[in-house]
């Protein structure tokens, strides 16, 4: 049943197994634990078997392993296809292939599969350190490929690695040529599996207590913004994403229904221009400063009537938008009751205390604006606290928060405030987005992280239209002015990168972020648009794919000629073997004496012939040949023997 492994022989096998283990390792981050463990167990099994300490599993065990694991994957992912399940299946196949590997061909296929699994890692991350790691894995896999074809070189670890690095370096110019010139397409070739972009963090279209404070725990970057001229102060950086108008008593959600009337937008002051580089988040929202100029909305996006800027497709790759916004504006001043009805809606029941409070304030206040002011004063003056770890809230969440726990994050304040406004008859809605951002002086742009996620309110006031009110600012003004890190009390679980207490770390991080931004823009984000832009800037105009293909062909020819010139450059001649040279001198002496040695005749044969043809020379010849063989092939070759050999040859007189 079980067979011992014969190929690849052991030193070569180390290379192969190491490469495979290294390529599977990063997948462990998202594979089910049992599958990663199983894969590594199978690699360990194969490794042990290679040294003959374990037999390889028979066909039936392999079938059982395959069937069992495939069933497990099916249970885990509910499918065998799609991105994540596909990667899980590939990992399984690779590990099984190792166990099933019998000969050269199998081993080669294993390396190919390994390469393929490298590429699937890029589904999950494309950052610089990860890319560096994976190219190191490619280095090992390529060394394994070389070693499989020349097992004799597997023993030393330096030589295969060096040769593999040489191959990859020589291939690099070709890679660069094709990377720049291969015609990029605008979108996917066909529909992608639905899970292709899962696991992306970002704002969702619902807001309930806790949803944003969870997001804030992540220091992942949401987008970067580079201003054309002077950047506005942080307190004015409200990056608007979504308007949540629907409320079911607990959750706030988007109003998808359209309104017939357009919103009027009046703007004053000078607009600010900036470029957003939005990280893929698989949702269509784009994060314009309040409020974007409706006349200069980028292509592929549209502005809704409540001023949400939406891309036509979910943002699935790093995308750049050039935008113009007015920071001084009035919107929807002429909104009629029909347009405001939804902004006044509350469920019939729930949160009685809050309703009661709203009624009281309403009765005392002289105007809608006064209601807003009084509620904000309430937040400011009473002992409300700003925290990332608010207590859990029950059924009447607004009541509980306002009167019992009094601890909350921005969504609690915005939610409670908006509820109170509506209860007091003031049209109000919630806006989510990001607030502030960290300025990076190295690249002179703002980095906006998920930890900058924020929620605020908009109330509609007669004569002023929709006005932004940020109740969090009433509780914690430093949140708005100085960012989240300074607003939270010490000891709150802040993401590491947001902390402000380590200056040098901050500088390092900013330098690194500038590098990774360019990486993201020019390497990871190099798409059709960037490609066309690059060649336009280089003065080629708008290149067609036909021109690109010609470029590739010509470039390939030129580069290959250059690489060939390098590969076939005349190398140093090996230093002539001193022993060999002396032996040839000895042969030349014998040749003069009429005993020519054809190149094919070995030393022993030659000595035998000398003994037969010229017995008087036999003793000398034998001595020389004896030492020659000892020096060339013997284990005891030494400089003493060499000296003896040299003097024998010199004194040899036929």
């Amino acid at each position, binding site marked *: 049943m079980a067979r011992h492994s014969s190929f690849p022989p052991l030193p070569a096998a180390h290379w192969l197994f190491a490469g495979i283990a290294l390529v599977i390792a990063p997948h462990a981050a998202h594979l089910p634990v049992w599958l990663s463990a199983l894969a590594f167990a199978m690699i360990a099994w194969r490794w042990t078997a290679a040294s003959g300490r374990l037999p390889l599993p028979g066909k039936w065990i392999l079938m059982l392993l395959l069937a069992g694991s495939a069933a497990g994957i099916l249970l885990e992912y509910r499918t065998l296809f799609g991105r994540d399940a596909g990667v899980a299946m590939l990992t399984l196949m690779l590990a099984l292939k190792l166990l099933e590997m019998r000969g050269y061909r199998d081993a080669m296929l294993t390396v190919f599969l390994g390469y393929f699994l490298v590429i699937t890692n*890029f589904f999950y991350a494309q950052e610089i350190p990860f890319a560096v790691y994976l190219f190191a894995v490619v280095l090992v896999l390529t060394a394994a490929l070389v070693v499989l074809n020349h097992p004799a070189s597997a023993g030393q670890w330096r030589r295969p690695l060096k040769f593999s690095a040489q191959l990859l370096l020589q*291939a690099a110019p070709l890679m660069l040529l094709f990377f720049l010139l291969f015609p990029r397409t605008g979108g996917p*070739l066909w529909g992608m599996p639905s899970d292709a972009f899962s696991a992306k963090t970002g704002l969702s279209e619902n807001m309930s207590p806790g949803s944003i404070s969870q997001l804030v725990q992540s220091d992942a970057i949401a987008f970067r913004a580079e201003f054309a001229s002077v950047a506005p102060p942080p307190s004015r950086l409200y990056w608007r994403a979504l308007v949540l108008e629907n409320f079911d008593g607990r959750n706030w959600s988007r109003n998808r229904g359209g309104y017939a009337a357009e919103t009027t937008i009046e703007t004053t002051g000078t607009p600010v221009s900036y470029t957003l580089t939005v990280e893929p988040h698989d949702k269509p929202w784009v994060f314009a400063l309040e409020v974007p100029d409706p006349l200069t909305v980028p292509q592929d996006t549209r502005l809704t009537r409540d001023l949400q800027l939406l891309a036509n497709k979910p943002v699935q790759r790093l995308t750049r938008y050039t935008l113009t916004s007015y920071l001084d504006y009035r919107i929807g001043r002429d909104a009629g009751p029909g347009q405001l009805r939804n902004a006044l809606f509350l469920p019939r029941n729930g949160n009685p205390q809050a309703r009661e409070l709203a009624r009281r304030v309403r009765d005392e206040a002289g105007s809608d604006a006064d209601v807003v002011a009084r509620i904000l004063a309430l937040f400011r003056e009473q002992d409300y606290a700003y925290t990332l770890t608010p207590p859990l809230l029950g059924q009447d969440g607004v009541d509980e928060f306002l009167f019992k726990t009094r601890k909350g994050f921005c969504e609690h304040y915005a939610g409670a405030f908006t509820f109170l406004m509506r209860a007091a008859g003031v049209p109000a809605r919630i806006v989510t987005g990001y607030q502030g951002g960290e300025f990076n002086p190295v690249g002179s742009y703002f980095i906006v992280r998920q930890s900058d996620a924020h929620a605020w309110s908009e109330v509609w006031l007669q004569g002023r239209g929709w006005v932004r009110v940020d109740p969090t600012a009433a509780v914690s003004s430093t949140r708005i002015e100085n960012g989240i890190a300074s607003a939270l009390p010490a000891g709150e679980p802040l993401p590491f990168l947001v902390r402000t207490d380590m200056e040098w770390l901050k500088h390092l991080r900013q330098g690194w972020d500038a590098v990774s931004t360019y990486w993201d823009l020019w*390497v990871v984000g190099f798409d059709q648009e960037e490609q066309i832009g690059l060649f336009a800037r280089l003065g080629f105009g708008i290149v067609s794919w036909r021109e690109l293909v010609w470029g590739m062909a010509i470039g390939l020819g030129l580069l290959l000629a250059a*690489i060939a010139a390098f590969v076939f450059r005349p190398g140093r001649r090996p230093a002539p073997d001193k022993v060999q040279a002396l032996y040839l001198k000895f042969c030349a002496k014998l040749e003069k004496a009429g005993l020519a040695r*054809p190149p094919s005749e070995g030393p022993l044969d030659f000595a035998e012939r000398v003994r037969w043809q010229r017995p008087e020379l036999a*003793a000398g010849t*034998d001595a020389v040949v004896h030492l020659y063989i000892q020096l060339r092939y013997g284990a005891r070759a030494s400089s003493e023997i060499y000296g003896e050999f040299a003097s024998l040859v010199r004194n040899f007189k036929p």
Partner: protein
Amino acid sequence: MLSQLVRGRGSEAGPVVLDRRRIYILPTRLGAVFAVFLTAMLIGSINYGLSLGYVLTFLLGGVAVVGILHTYKNLQGLKIADAGASPAFAGEDAVFHLEFAAPGPRFALNLLNRSAEPVRFDVEATRRASVRIPATRRGRLKPGRFTLSSVYPLGLLRAWSYVQLDHAAIVYPKPGGIPLERMAAGEADTGERPGTREGSDDFAGLRAWQPGDSPRQVAWKVAARSGMLATKRFSDVEGATVLFDWGNLASLDAEARLSQLARWVLDAEQADLRYGLRIPGIEIAPGNGLPHRQRCLEALALFGLPEHG
């Protein structure tokens, strides 16, 4: 088709240096599989917009392309020379030697011949490779065409070249069944026994010293120089002289006679006799020693064959 084209070249005498005109290169089957893998990786990169996927795909594609140069380089400049062939008896394997020399190291070369097991070897600077080819009939055995190939370094491409040298091994007749002791008196001419111990002090070489060797026979000069004891050997011929005659084997057909004569040559050499050979057209005076044995066997091997057959 290619092979037929090349076969037209016929065999060559001198050392052959592999160059552009002699080296062929094509992807292996695994190379084609690799291309399929790369295509799948490219399609995946396009579909998912994986920029680093493009990088990896093009890098591996580049490695395969650069691999063409390296695979070619592994054969290029390789000098292949005829390094002789060891004679064999019919029914055994003749061993053909080829000497390889290269300006730099060459790896995982495969030497293939229609009728031999492939031989795999590296060439560091020079190297001799030997191919065993079964010898079926006496005469001159030509190995035919050698294919020298290599898939080094990646296994994705195979470079190869055909080499056909003027290479021949002498195949001696398969020794016949009747041992020398049973040779009928009439079948051999027993010459006179030389009474003198001819050449009793003929120096016949050195061998490693063994316990029991007379100290008088130790080559002290050599021992002083090399640090190893060696014993001088002297030919000490004192056997009878025999003549093996074709005419005495009338009961056998020609090939069987040659076989039988070969057997006796071997036995006589073994028994340290002096022996001569007489076959139609050739007469070899009695002698002794390996070169003599070789002369006799060669004469038997090539009997009746054209000069260059």
